[in-house]
């Protein structure tokens, strides 16, 4: 029931209530007790973390993992692991050169953590795929380019090197093609581009810079039989408008953009809006307040093509009782 509710909403069909999608990130390891790193590096622990969250919070849809460093690792970035959250990119392979990576570096099933992630996805598909919509975020091309290039992408390339910008985004879009093929092959229902850095692109440049690459990715996702999403925390209403027409079925925004204001934008386009709680509310320890905010969100989104899902992962520091209260408010 939950799976169908979620997929119907993403297809902008009527549903009995607004579905909610959980993006646990490293929090899944906390929920299952194995810790963040184990949940992101071990196939059995990854599957166990997913199943524990599903059992406890009963979302309609859920991300198998939400970690934008997976692709970066495949492409040659080193990662640092802090133990209590997602890993971070430690270096930028293209920071000191104007060359491009070789196409033989584009991710394959043998690279980075994919030999762990893909079997975990297959197992999750077997055990939970009938009832829960399986979401697989992949790193979006802009954020991936940022991981490869560092700040130079924004301080130099964006303004001064349009040719290089096009080349690196093209390369990262090809990396995304490979990733979506692998994840859909492993049974995922929805592929979402995670773009936590996207909000730093000037609004007037967003469409021209990214629309074609996004459209190609979303068209390919659709052609392979899955639904598509774009997770863009931190974007403004004007930036959201630029993102509504790039072919994604669903666009999630961060909590800084009020749901009503976001809806006023998305309603003009054939897209489902994702809106969720701010991360701070989940870490506050105030379960009642978190539940109240979720009820407020549900009221705002009721009757619209929407899902309860902000663009960011549940923080590792989230309080378990607060997440539980928010989950119950989302489902009742």
């Amino acid at each position: 029931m939950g799976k169908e509710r979620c997929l119907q909403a993403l297809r902008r069909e009527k549903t009995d209530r607004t579905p909610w999608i959980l993006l646990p990130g490293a929090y899944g390891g906390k929920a299952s007790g194995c810790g963040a790193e184990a949940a992101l590096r071990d196939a059995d622990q990854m599957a166990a973390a997913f199943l524990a969250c599903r059992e406890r919070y009963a979302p309609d849809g859920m991300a198998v993992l939400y970690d934008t460093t997976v692709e970066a690792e495949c492409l040659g970035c080193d990662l640092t692991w802090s133990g209590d959250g997602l890993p971070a990119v430690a270096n930028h392979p293209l920071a000191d050169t104007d060359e491009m990576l070789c196409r033989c570096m584009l991710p394959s099933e043998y690279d980075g953590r994919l030999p762990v992630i893909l079997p975990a996805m297959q197992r999750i598909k077997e055990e939970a795929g009938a009832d829960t919509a399986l979401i697989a975020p992949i790193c979006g091309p802009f954020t991936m380019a940022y991981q490869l290039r560092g700040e130079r992408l924004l301080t130099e390339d964006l303004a001064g090197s349009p040719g290089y910008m096009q080349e690196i985004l093209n390369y990262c879009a090809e990396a995304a093609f490979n990733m979506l093929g692998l994840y859909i092959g492993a049974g995922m229902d929805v592929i979402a581009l995670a773009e936590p850095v996207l909000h730093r692109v000037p609004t007037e440049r967003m469409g021209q810079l990214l629309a074609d690459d996004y459209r190609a990715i979303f068209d390919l996702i659709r052609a392979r039989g899955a639904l598509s999403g774009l997770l863009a925390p931190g974007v403004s209403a004007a930036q959201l408008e630029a993102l509504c027409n790039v072919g994604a079925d669903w666009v999630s925004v961060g909590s800084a953009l009020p749901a009503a204001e976001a809806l006023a934008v998305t309603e003009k386009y054939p897209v489902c809006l994702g809106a969720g709680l701010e991360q701070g509310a989940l870490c506050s320890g105030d379960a009642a307040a978190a539940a109240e905010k979720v009820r407020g969100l549900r009221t705002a989104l009721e009757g619209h093509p929407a899902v309860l899902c902000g663009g960011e992962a549940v923080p590792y520091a989230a309080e378990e009782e607060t997440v539980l209260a928010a989950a119950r408010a989302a489902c009742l």
Partner: protein
Amino acid sequence: MIDIILLTGFLGAGKTTFLQRLLEAYTQHKLGIIVNDFGEINVDAKLIQKEGMEMLELSNGSIFCACIKSKFVNGLVEMSKMDLDYLLIEASGLSDPANMEKLLEDIQSQTTHPLRLFASVCIVDAEYFLDLVDVLPALAQQVGYADAVIVNKADLADEETLTGIAQRIDELNQGVGVYCTSYCRVEIDELLSHLKSERKTSGETTNTVASRPSSFTLRGKESVALQGLEAFLKEIAPDTYRIKGFVMTDQGAKEVSAVGGNIQIHDWPEQTEETALVVISSVGVKLVSRILSASQTYLEGKLKL
């Protein structure tokens, strides 16, 4: 000593056609072949496959680029162990052979029979050469390092264009022999006995990954309508450098070859159980959207990326 004849030239210029002519002319010689194809599928290797011939296929990039150079080098060393008169190497369309002689020098100690670059023959596409030579550095390098140049598809160009091509070739490689023809019909013995006597010194190749365009492979297990295929190709060809492969149609298996707007579809006599079509984009990844839309419109979505 094994003599290497290296064939270079842009995508679709006629390298494989010329290679076929060499094979027909050299039936009395012991030949080895290395076929380098740009896409994921080595279409050219299928076109020239012959029994009893030593052939190595190298796909997914240029033999002079870091991507597959080590495989190329290993292939050369392996070929040097065989009793061959000639080693024919068909480089991929965007290959820059500037470092070929240096490469052979570097592997000298590893080879069984010495390998010598006997001839570098560049095939130029009369229809597109002048449009592309200043945009794609590899094309200028191919002409620059050639010992002979064949200006192919001369029937598709007017006198003014052919004169322009001859001038440009002379700027890039003064004194090189130039042969204007169609379907690479040249007197091979004449060409190979009048090679340019002094070759340019080996230099750095421009084959970096930045010069490598996006390529995609379409596959399908169902036949498509031939009419639909023609419409599909016409729709996407303007945004490509090259399309080639084998397609199952309602009128039998077809070999497809397109260079820009010039689309050729021929009967393919061999059994093929799966369509495989390589498309090399001239517009980056956004071609994907156009391919998917055109596949849906003209081919009922039967060919998939």
